[in-house]
């Protein structure tokens, strides 16, 4: 048995500081009063997590040291005031991608886009305040997407026909879609995830809304970005999962995973072909899955709400339950460099690492009392991880 001393200690502190406070003491009337104890958790109970993004005396201090050291994550990104002209602190990072340790990109709300060259960050002027949700880093060009009907490209040899390029050379692009395969308007379905294998022809995109959504893929055509629906709208609308997907990733260009609401896990094969095939797997959960990362054709990780983690290990029909997750907050993204170096990030500043044996909490320094929700992660190589969230970009100090 583990006895929770937290409330007692806090109570003593309160008494000492202010004497006996009778506020809230009830008379004999039988009325609902606060439950005199810590809120039980659904399972596990191993954490002492703060329920607030702006904690006072914290119950999770051990995970949020003040000093940045080599083994903890520390702020390292294009946010003001450390970087004059950098992102506003309110900016949420939606996606991090890179080609190497010295070629890292972050994109987020209200036109936020920045590049790390291995030594310093530089903010890019996209010429728009649209919120960016997807990045496609091609061999010699970069494309940033706010939604499926628009993209901003640099180094893309396509006529744009729109306004002149931004000061940093980014041009607005309008993808064209095959007849009857155009995605719904940006107001109906929002881009939530985009991914392409290195050097791949196709960028896979998920869009989701209350009444519309689906899976599309884009490629560079001779005159514009060309798009098509992977699953026809008529089929997608009748599917229990197609319209509500959240994340896409694959170990190769030809085979990938998508995960989403209601615990949906779907493997798409023949992804580079004309007619990809989708097969739904059993994730053993009904809770929403927010992120997926494939280590290989036979191994993948998915993370979701309330600390849900699922592990695919090659079974023909289902994913395995991971029960030793040291958190109950919502997990929002997952990435790795190998099957023994996987990272997951979530709300309230939670970062987890899997070393091939188990998941453990990773400390985050330099946040003070803030516990920002973390929404993006990308791993360049073993130990070289980048994490983004609400008003923050983190990396392991000394391992950029």
């Amino acid at each position: 048995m583990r006895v929770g001393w937290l409330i007692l200690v806090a109570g003593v502190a309160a008494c000492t500081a202010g004497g006996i406070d009778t506020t809230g003491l009830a008379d004999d009337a039988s009325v609902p009063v606060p439950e005199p104890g810590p809120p039980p958790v659904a399972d596990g109970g191993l954490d002492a997590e703060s329920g607030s993004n702006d904690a006072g005396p914290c119950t999770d201090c051990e995970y949020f040291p003040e000093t940045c050291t080599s083994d903890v994550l520390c702020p390292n990104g294009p946010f003001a005031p450390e970087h004059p002209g950098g992102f506003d602190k309110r900016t949420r990072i939606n996606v991090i991608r890179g080609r190497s340790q010295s070629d890292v990109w972050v994109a987020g709300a209200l036109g936020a886009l920045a590049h790390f060259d291995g030594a310093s960050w530089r903010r890019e002027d996209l010429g728009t305040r649209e919120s960016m949700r997807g990045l496609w880093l091609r061999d010699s060009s970069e494309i940033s997407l706010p939604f499926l009907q628009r993209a901003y490209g640099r180094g893309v040899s396509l006529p744009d026909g729109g306004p002149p390029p931004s000061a940093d050379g980014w041009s607005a692009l309008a993808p064209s879609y095959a007849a009857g395969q155009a995605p719904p308007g940006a107001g109906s379905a929002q881009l939530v995830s985009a991914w392409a294998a290195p050097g791949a022809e196709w960028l896979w995109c998920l869009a989701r809304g209350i009444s519309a959504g689906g899976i599309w893929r884009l490629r560079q055509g001779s005159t514009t970005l060309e798009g098509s629906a992977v699953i026809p709208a008529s089929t997608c609308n009748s599917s229990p999962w197609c319209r509500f997907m959240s994340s896409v990733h694959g170990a190769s260009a030809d085979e990938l995973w998508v995960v989403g609401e209601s615990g949906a896990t779907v493997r798409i094969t023949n992804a580079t072909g004309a007619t990809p095939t989708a097969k739904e797997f059993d994730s053993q959960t009904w809770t929403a899955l927010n992120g997926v990362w494939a280590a290989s054709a036979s191994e993948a990780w998915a993370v979701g709400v309330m600390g849900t983690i699922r592990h695919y290990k090659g079974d023909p029909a289902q994913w395995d339950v991971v029960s030793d997750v040291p958190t109950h907050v919502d997990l929002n993204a997952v990435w790795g460099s190998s099957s023994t170096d996987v990272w997951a990030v979530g709300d309230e500043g939670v970062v987890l690492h899997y070393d091939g044996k188990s998941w453990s909490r990773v400390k985050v320094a330099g946040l003070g009392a803030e516990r920002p929700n973390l929404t993006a992660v990308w791993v360049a190589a073993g130990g070289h991880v980048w994490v983004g969230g609400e008003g923050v970009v983190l990396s392991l100090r000394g391992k950029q």
Partner: protein
Amino acid sequence: MNRNVACAAILTATVGALVFACASPIGDDVLLVANDADAGGAISPPIFVAPDASDAQADVDQNVNLTPYCPSNECPEGRATCPSSRFRCEVNLRTDRANCGACGAACPNDTFTEIYECVEGKCEFECKKPYGDCDGVADNGCETRLDSNDNCNGCGVKCEDPTKPCVQHRVGYGCGCEDGKVYCPATNNCVDPKNDDDNCGACGNRCDPTGGGKPAYTNMYYGCVDSKCDELKCKKDWGNCDGLLSNGCETYLVTSANCGACGAACGAEEKCRIDPQGEGFPFYFSKPQCMCPQGMTFCGSCQEDGCRGQCFDLSSSWENCGACGLRCPAPPFFGATGGSTCNYGMCELQCFEGRADCNGDAKDYCETNIDSDPMNCGACGRVCDAIAGQACVGGECVVEPCKEEDAGVFTQ
């Protein structure tokens, strides 16, 4: 992510626990909250423990004003478990329209003239505009229209001057027109006789745009000025900026140099556009203006004759969140449990008080009733299981004053 729940319940629970601990005179180590959270994950019910029976008894006796509380499986006063309830003690008999004062005692449905609410366990009604309950008889509800000459914006308020009947004002109704306008019985509306080309100086006095054969000038016509017809005026979106009559209204007023008025130049980052919802609404009266101020984005469409649209802050606009036209999901019309807000360019689900999105699925919004669900009481996964049948009321696990004291262990 994007799951917002009311934190008040959690804070209240913590405060309650602190008060209980502080109030004990036994000492710093008297009252513990045991929380069995071993590796198996089983949670034992919270109990309030004194380390020594005699000490505890003595201390309780000395503090007669203090009330120890224990978990309860009873409903608090005013709460009930009705046949329609999904959870124990779910119904608030004081406010539930379907169970007002008693299970099944439903308030009448809203009518064309009344809205019914359950107030302190009794059904009461409120009048819809423009109706009023002038006779004070509840049985006939809101029987009187308050937009008539006998009852203008209030019971018994009469409009006795035939030239000043009861008409709609910006707020409510009143006798006669506002802002120097006059009432025209033929059209049943209020007009501005000083500048209205169709009602110049008096109702129905329409000005001849040719001035009865007077000289014509470019982009000009003859209209009403100071209640007089036959005065030269510029056509919409044109101005006589050089002051010369010979070339008429020569300047187009939808340009960056002259936007809406002569010499009204736009800033470097702005362009002259037409806001259909702006000054001069509706759109055919709308006046060109420089758009958009710094930090705002123009959302609209451009044709050969100019651009029409509005300026929005993409960081907070619900209908243009992070991009023009990117509307945050609207809640369902019926049974809404939450909506969405635009938080610095990103839509976020916002649950109504007492609701939470515990499964992370946007399509069912805030599916969990954290006000009443004992498995998610006040927060997702917060379980009321101190004793069998413990209900969740208002996001709190129900407790009541302990019924007996037994060897220093206050429990049921």
